[in-house]
């Protein structure tokens, strides 16, 4: 089971840095796993913890939120707010017993296509042994 399991990852990428970074990875023809479903958001600061809970609720095996490096935010300070808010969300998810690997954050700039592919590879490698995420998945 474990070697055939492919985790589904939802990635919230900020438009100005991480999304451009993933684009760079694409146009540079870098290879990385296809497990990730990117969702472009205007800023990592606009990612509400609700998005993360909701993604896990609808069956994501892992969630990645990626934004600009601190100081590089297009909106000056959006990623600082994201850092604070999502740190709390991460602690909360760990508190109720979700594996910490399931929700991760990264800073990826528009020039870091290489780093983006690296993060996705690592994420997939970490999520594979955990198996499907069933804890928060909707069962109605």
């Amino acid at each position, binding site marked *: 089971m474990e070697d055939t399991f492919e985790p589904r990852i939802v990635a919230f990428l900020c438009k100005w840095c991480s999304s451009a970074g993933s684009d760079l990875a694409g146009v540079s023809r870098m290879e990385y796993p296809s497990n990730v479903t990117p969702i472009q958001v205007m800023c990592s600061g606009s990612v509400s913890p609700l998005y993360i809970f909701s993604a896990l609720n609808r069956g994501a095996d892992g969630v990645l939120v990626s934004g600009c490096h601190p100081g590089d935010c297009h909106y000056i300070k959006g990623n600082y707010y994201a850092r604070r808010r999502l740190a709390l969300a991460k602690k909360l998810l760990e508190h109720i017993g979700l594996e910490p690997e399931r929700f991760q954050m990264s800073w990826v700039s528009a020039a870091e296509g290489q780093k983006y592919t690296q993060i996705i590879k690592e994420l997939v490698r970490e999520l594979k042994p955990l198996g499907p995420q069933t804890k*928060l998945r909707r069962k109605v």
Partner: protein
Amino acid sequence: MVNIQSLKEEARKCLQEGKVKYIIGYEKGADGWKANPAFIKKPEDVEKLIWDPTCFHNLARFLVDEKRRKAKEKQPDTRPVGVVVKGCDSRAVVILLQEKFIERNDVYILGLSCEKAGVVDERKLARKLDGKKPVKIELGEKDNFLVFTDDGKAEIPVREILAERCLECKANFPVISDVLFGEKTKREVLNPFQSIEKMESLAQEDKWNFWKQTLAKCIRCYACRSVCPMCYCDECVSDTINFAVTADTTAEEKAQKIKWLEKSPVLSENIFYNLVRAIHLAGRCIDCGECERACPVNIPLRLLNKKMEKEALKLFGYEAGFDPSQPSLISCFKDEDPQDFIR
């Protein structure tokens, strides 16, 4: 000791002078021993006011209702509302002020210091009395509660029946008040995060098993939300009541309506709801413990809120409810906020 007579005098004076619209306080409840929230409108009614260890309710909640009511009135009475607050309730008022939900001159705060004790925990008391019904509870002289039952009097040490939240209280006196009754004496609290430490030491799987069992009980009655002074959103994530579907609602409108979670009380949705509530209360919860008390199925909701409180303090050095001029936790940041979890 809080002198109840002086509280009554002050309340009477305020009402007679017309300084306040009405006073929210505590009166003897219908069941004979517990306090009930009371709305005192006439000066002669102030005799009803009481103050004893059964005054659990966080009366700051009624300020939220008051604001809603006032917004609907054509010619609102702009006088302040008198509100009787304990230490925890006063911090709730601070948060409401901090978030500019109410103005400082909307409230006239009558602060009561809990001094040596706090409020009793009904469940602990019931266990202690073996099902006997108390008639009256008083704070005794030497760190004990005097519990009167039909067949006599029992002296129970404060620590044994004090509510959990009071055992971990950070300030058992009002941090903001117009008039203060009682002394600002700080009761010794050894560890304000005692209750969650056991929880934190568990392995990830055990934590999950614990929450799986407890949250599966949730019946989604939303008592926690109704009783919480901080849960004042006009529209809650869990029920989109403001967007009623009528005959005129177009398919497009319906499609655009976001439905975050299902209403059925199943485990996954219960977790979602409680996670959302916890994250919305992060840095705002003042640990009045009302959600836990109101919960009909005894879910230890404080464990969620307390965790957020602890993380806010540990990661960001933030304590909720002490300074109305401070920005709220997630509307500010520092350059040196921890980011070791970010790749």
